[in-house]
């Protein structure tokens, strides 16, 4: 039984990381119908930016702050203006292809600085706790708690603040939102900015484990994508649920089913969700338009 909880807890810690990246997927999808295939790279770039600032001797909090500013400008504003805005009216195909191109460019651009994995300072002390036979590290707990707080905080922001509600109104119905006098382009930009900030936060939390490497976004992006679909692409809470399900699912599957097919469990769930509840476990149904 302790073994089970060991797996469960590790899975939750890993899953909360997926959730954080998945949240960005769902936010962008809701606000602008963007499926960002460069989402993993959006986490990788801030990790390198922080390392770069730190290498100039800046303290971590300052480099984190500067990275956020930079990310809002580049991953938020420039991404929206340069890629999403011109392609928005053409639909999903074009944005998918453009973000694929973007991910190739980002990954290989960073690769030019080196193909090595770099260690990344952890926010948490290197301490291990033993609770009833289950060993957890401080970073497991810290990552889980912080990631949950970020997801819940984003939720609260969207639900409780005027700006957040305006953003949700835009996500649900752009036309009526603009009739209500909401500045739609600005709200969409806010969503992109939040996505950029979340990416920075995710970078801070995941990089100590994933290690700063040019291709770290690849597997993170895929897992987050699965998580977002399972949870519900148009629901931010779904991202959390989806992330945790994928994280826990692959651990339990590796231990109790087959390590080689551990991804198949998340995959099977993914397929079932798509075919029988395509809006995701927590997503709301989208009307099929004639």
């Amino acid at each position, binding site marked *: 039984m302790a073994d089970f909880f060991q797996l469960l807890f590790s899975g939750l810690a890993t899953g909360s990381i997926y959730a954080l990246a998945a949240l960005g997927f769902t936010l962008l999808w809701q606000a602008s119908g963007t*499926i960002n*295939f460069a989402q993993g790279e959006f986490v990788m770039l801030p990790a390198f930016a922080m390392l770069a600032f730190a290498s100039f001797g800046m303290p971590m909090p300052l480099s984190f702050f500067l990275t956020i500013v930079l990310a809002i400008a580049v991953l938020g504003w420039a991404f929206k203006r*340069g*890629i999403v805005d*011109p*392609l928005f009216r*053409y639909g*999903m*195909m*074009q944005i*998918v*292809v*453009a973000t*694929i*191109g*973007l*991910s*190739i*460019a*980002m*990954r*290989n*651009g960073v*690769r*030019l600085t080196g193909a090595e994995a770099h260690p990344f300072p952890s926010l948490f002390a290197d301490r291990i706790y033993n609770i009833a036979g289950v060993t957890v590290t401080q970073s497991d707990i810290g990552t889980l708690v912080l990631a949950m707080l970020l997801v819940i905080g984003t939720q609260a922001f969207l639900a409780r603040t005027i700006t957040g509600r305006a953003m949700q109104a835009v996500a649900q119905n752009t036309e009526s939102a603009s009739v209500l006098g909401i500045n739609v382009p600005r709200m969409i930009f806010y969503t992109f900015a939040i996505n950029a900030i979340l990416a920075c936060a995710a970078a801070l939390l995941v990089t100590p484990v994933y290690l700063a490497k040019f291709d770290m976004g690849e597997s993170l992006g*895929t897992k987050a994508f699965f998580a977002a*679909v399972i949870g519900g*692409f148009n629901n931010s809470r779904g991202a959390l649920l989806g992330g945790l399900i994928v994280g826990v699912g692959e651990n339990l599957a590796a231990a109790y089913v087959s390590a*080689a*097919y551990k*991804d*198949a469990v998340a*995959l099977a769930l*993914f*397929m079932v969700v*798509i*075919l029988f509840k*395509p809006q995701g476990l927590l997503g709301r149904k989208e009307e*099929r338009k*004639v």
Partner: protein
Amino acid sequence: MKKQSAIIFTSVALLALLVAPHFLKSYGVYLLTYWLVFILAAMGLNLTVGYAGQKSLGHAAFFGIGAYTVAIMMKAGFSFWLGLPAAAAICFVTGILVGFPALRVQTIYLAFATLGFNTAAWLVMRNEEQYTGGTFGINNIARPELFGLSLDGALAYYYFTLGVTIVFGLLLFGLLRSPWGKAFTALRDNPIRAESLGVDVRNYTLLSFAIGAVYAGVAGALFASLVQFIDPAPFGVGQSIMMYLMVVIGGPGYFFGPVVGAAVGVVLPEWLRFAQDWYLFVFGSAVVLLMIWLPDGLLSIPDRIRARRESREASAARAAAVTAAAANAGKGSGA
């Protein structure tokens, strides 16, 4: 007029394809063959995505199924000529099965479902080692013979691939000109209206997947014999996304879109190698810029020029009308 120029253009391109390899060394011939293989695969995807409007991100799975079918059968001692139709048949059936989700879900959800199928197929290729060789892959896949002629040489295999591509290209062209082509397009543009007009949405959806899958399967079979080695890596989701990119960049729903798109996906990175370390960065950026510049694909350029000319003429006509009206009004007030 448009038809004539298309015929001239096609014949010139064909002639170039026939003559080109004689001016190239083996690397160039290999690259051209590689390109042809991807043209064939992308043609199939263009039918599924570009004409029938079914968003598929699982095309590389069919490509892999075709490749593994031929490789495994040839290793078991069967001829390539048995493997090729087997690959096509297996892909056809799998394509129909994969089409069923498309009857339930559309747009991005369909893309997700096909992506899931691709991942599942890839896991099988990697894990079922006794059949597929797992991550070691299958090595020394032979090239076929045709009427006693060995296709082992680079040039012979190139012409063989070219021949297959042309035959399948003509078949697709014939299909798209037939009522089926219209039915697929109707399905893409407006499935509900199509059904109310008697278009059997279910059959055409499934067939759009199945026929697309056959093209990918045949391409996969040619790929296995071309590289003479396969492992699961080139049949993953990444490859599906690349094929999707080829279709969209070339111009979905344009018959020659895959030709241009596969050139971007296969030949462009090779050509960009002069940029050395930067080449993939340049490639990725080029894709982004191309998409922003031509969201409907490279082959939309003529349409775009025509549309621009027409709108210019229309606005000129409008301006003339306004001037005339103003002149009339002037007269009226003057009187």
